[in-house]
């Protein structure tokens, strides 16, 4: 049953990718259908899980022994508990919607079939990731989603920028994967196994140092996958991919895998405070980093990417808080999945209407032309800034509370950072909203000189947007009324309320205040006066932020250049030094043979002499042997 979850989209991927052109017409429907199938299966499993008691809700399915080697057992086995089923529903649900959306979005692309193949591949890998019952199998899914995102970011391969972005994404992820594999090795040497159950139970039996090491390695992995500082640089470029991809992979699901990993290995972090601290720090830094970047970008998708970064920063932060925060991390993850996917789909719809123009400074006043998009996008906007009653409000506030609840100076610092982040979020999201939908038209003809004729997108695109909007409105409330979600996850994440220095009401109030501040600031800057259609030079910070706070430049100078020089010099060394030695030998041999060559004067008789002499020597030898 569980295996079917993974199998269905996998089958889809195989069929779509291998079965040539004849599938072009039905391909996208097949892909969508299979995604829906796994969603339905997910629902079924979910419902009968609800039927059971809180404790025996964990399902296990052992398929076969994968790598049986002396003292090393890796199995292909699945584990379905509350945590993973939550992810399953999110992934397959949002996934299905986005499949639906892409049918319209990719209509004019002749490689649509392959696109759906890749999407299915992604679903399969992602489901494998959350369903695996041991770290090695998780690693498979982990790399699988990396591959899928590589393929999808670089889907328009004829654009060099896309190809480069894809490569960059995969490489940065690979660095993170290194962390994961080292973590697995550590687990193996420490516990002799890497199945979730055994490892997490055995945490008590080893020293904190080992656990800290494992935790840090896991954090590295999470940073890579979830675009956290210092491995965040790939996410912005990843927007080169088609918008549905950005929505599904780089907003809703894949990038949250890091959070899943940390929450899943909660026991390890609980036992290693230093690692936890590192996690929170990373989360906090990324939270601000992403938010700042988001403020400066004029490319709508990049702005959203920045916001994704910072929202995941929230989740990581929460996950770093330990049992206080796990639940809220997941909760925010789910709600964020809804509204951020909605926002991206909205952005896609806008681009769809604007000849794939991404520069917000060339938008403006679109609310009249694409009402549905406007409304859904607006709801998503309200949700993300945490407008009271919408899902973002619940999840984010809880995180901020938890941050304060961490206690001590850390608590204060983290909490205030979270608040600041909330303010900035409000600011940049308002900016996006205004620049896109309000103000006067700033449309310009695109490269081919086509004047954009903004129009509402087809049904197949609007329906998913509507559904997601509904999700982003209701999810938060539904989860947190009576702490449903908390109780639901408790058996896995063991929630406990910290001792918050501030009451929940205070925190909410503070959040509201910063929210208003952010919005008004944005309104003053973009709503009141007209938006220049070419970006002003801006302050130093702005310029830095436009360039992802110079992170890429750093990478380029240090890693790329350095690497190039290293390889070049190595090639040289290999060719001269290492090779030279051998050529020396070869030359000497050549000289020797040249000298020997003189013996071969071509006169039959002198050859005969040598032969004769040889025979004589042989006879002499034999005689001597006899004599001896």
């Amino acid at each position: 049953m569980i295996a079917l979850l993974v199998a269905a989209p996998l089958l889809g991927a195989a069929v779509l990718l291998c079965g040539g052109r004849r599938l072009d017409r039905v391909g996208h429907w097949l892909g969508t259908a299979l995604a829906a199938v796994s969603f339905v299966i997910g629902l079924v499993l979910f419902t009968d899980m609800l039927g059971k008691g809180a404790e025996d809700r964990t399902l296990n399915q052992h398929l076969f022994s994968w790598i049986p080697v002396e003292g090393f057992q890796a199995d292909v086995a699945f584990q379905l508990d509350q945590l993973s089923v939550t992810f399953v529903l999110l992934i397959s649900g949002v996934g299905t919607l986005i499949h639906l959306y892409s049918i319209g979005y990719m209509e004019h692309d002749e490689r649509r079939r392959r696109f759906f193949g890749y999407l299915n591949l992604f679903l399969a890998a992602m489901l494998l990731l959350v369903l695996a019952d041991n770290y090695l199998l998780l690693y498979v899914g982990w790399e699988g989603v990396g591959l899928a995102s590589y393929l999808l970011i670089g889907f328009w391969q004829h654009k060099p920028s896309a190809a480069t972005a894809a490569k960059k994404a995969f490489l940065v992820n690979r660095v993170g994967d290194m962390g994961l594999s080292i973590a697995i090795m550590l687990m193996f040497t420490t516990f002799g196994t890497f199945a979730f159950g055994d490892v997490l139970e055995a945490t008590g039996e080893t020293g904190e140092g080992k656990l800290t090491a494992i935790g840090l390695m896991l954090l590295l992995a999470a940073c890579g996958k979830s675009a956290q500082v210092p491995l965040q640089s790939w996410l912005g470029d990843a927007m080169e991919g088609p918008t549905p991809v950005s929505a599904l992979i780089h907003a809703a699901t894949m990038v949250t895998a890091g959070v899943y990993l940390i929450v899943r290995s909660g026991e390890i972090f609980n036992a290693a405070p230093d690692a936890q601290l590192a996690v929170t720090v990373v989360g906090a830094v990324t939270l601000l980093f992403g938010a700042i970047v988001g403020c400066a970008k004029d490319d709508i998708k990049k702005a959203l990417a920045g916001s994704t970064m910072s929202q995941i920063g929230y989740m990581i932060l929460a996950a770093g808080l330990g049992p206080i925060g796990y639940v809220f991390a997941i909760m925010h993850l789910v709600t964020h999945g809804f509204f951020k996917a909605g926002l991206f789909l909205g952005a896609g719809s806008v681009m769809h209407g604007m000849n794939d123009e991404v520069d917000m400074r060339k938008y403006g006043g679109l609310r009249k032309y694409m009402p549905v998009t406007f409304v859904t996008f607006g709801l998503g906007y309200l949700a993300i800034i945490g407008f009271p009653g919408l899902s973002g409000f619940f999840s984010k506030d809880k995180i901020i509370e938890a941050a304060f609840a961490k206690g001590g100076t850390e608590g204060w610092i983290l909490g205030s950072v979270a608040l600041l982040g909330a303010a900035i979020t409000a600011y940049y999201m308002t900016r996006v909203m205004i620049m896109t939908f309000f103000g006067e038209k700033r449309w310009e003809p695109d490269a081919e000189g086509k004047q954009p004729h903004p129009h509402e997108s087809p049904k197949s695109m609007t329906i998913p947007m509507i559904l997601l909007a509904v999700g982003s409105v209701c999810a938060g409330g539904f989860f947190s009324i009576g702490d449903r979600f908390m109780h639901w996850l408790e058996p896995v994440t063991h929630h406990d309320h910290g001792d918050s220095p501030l009451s929940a009401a205070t925190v909410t109030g503070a959040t509201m205040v910063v929210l208003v501040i952010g919005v008004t600031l944005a309104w003053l800057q973009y709503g009141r006066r007209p938006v220049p259609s070419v970006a002003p030079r801006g302050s130093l910070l702005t310029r830095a932020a436009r360039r992802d706070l110079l992170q890429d430049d750093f990478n380029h100078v240090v890693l790329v250049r350095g690497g190039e020089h290293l390889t070049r010099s190595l090639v040289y060394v290999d060719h001269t030094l290492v090779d030279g030695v051998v050529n020396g030998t070869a030359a000497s041999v050549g000289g020797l043979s040249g000298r020997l060559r003189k013996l071969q004067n071509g006169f039959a008789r002198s050859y005969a002499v040598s032969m004769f002499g040889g025979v004589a020597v042989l006879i002499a030898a034999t005689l001597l042997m006899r004599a001896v």
Partner: protein
Amino acid sequence: MTALAAYTTSTGEAVQFWVLATVAVIGALCTILMRKAVHSALCLAGTMIILAVFYLANGAYFLGIVQIVVYTGAIMMLFLFVVMLVGVTAADSLKETIKGQRWLAALCGFGFAILLFAGIGNASLKDFNGLAKANEGGNVEGLASLIFTKYVFAFEITGALLITATVGAMVLTHRERTERAKTQRERAEERVREGKHLPPLPAPGVYARHNAVDIAGLLPDGTPSELTVNQTLRERGQIRDVSSEALNDLRALEQRAADRLERPGSVRPDTGRSGEGDSGSDPVAAAAGEQTEEASK
């Protein structure tokens, strides 16, 4: 002799051995040292005959005969034939061209001989049982029985080998004629076209006192003409030039005549300087003079 060969080696055989062996070795040495191939061949033939005798002495009557018939009879004749074909008197200079070759060769040969001697010396060959038993049914029969029983396969194969050799020899020596033979007319025209020697080549010895093939005929000025000698001889450089000697002994003769008749040599112009045209008549006159003198005595 049968008995001898069969059991012991009689003193007779000893004598025979020592004498003939010396001759054989000398022959062999001559074979490799003679400058002319013909001489080498003859020496070798001699050595082989001696070997034939030794075979007989060793009770290998059949082989002895075969040795004489096949080797000295057929093979050596074949050699001589080829030698003739290639050039009888073509004496290749024994001067060595490859540096150190000769010394190395000699050294090797010498050392080799010594080694073989040492080997034979070491070998335990003291007792020997003669061929009496083997030969009692007659040597030839004995051989035959062996050849056709034990060695029959080898025999067959050698037969095949001989056939192959014959064919091979024919293939090697037979020259394929690629184009039609030219008719006499064509040859004549060709010669005219080349524009040399429309008339047939001059015969050798013409205008000279000899007419052997290897003597060049003399041109009117007394110098020999290459054309008159066969090309093969020319290539081998076997032309005897007699132009000068003819004149020389003519001069000598006249000198004698002059002495005899106390004629001042100056009376008659020196043949060397006087025209050659009448030189043919002088001896006649001289001879007449002598005869008259003798008659007068």
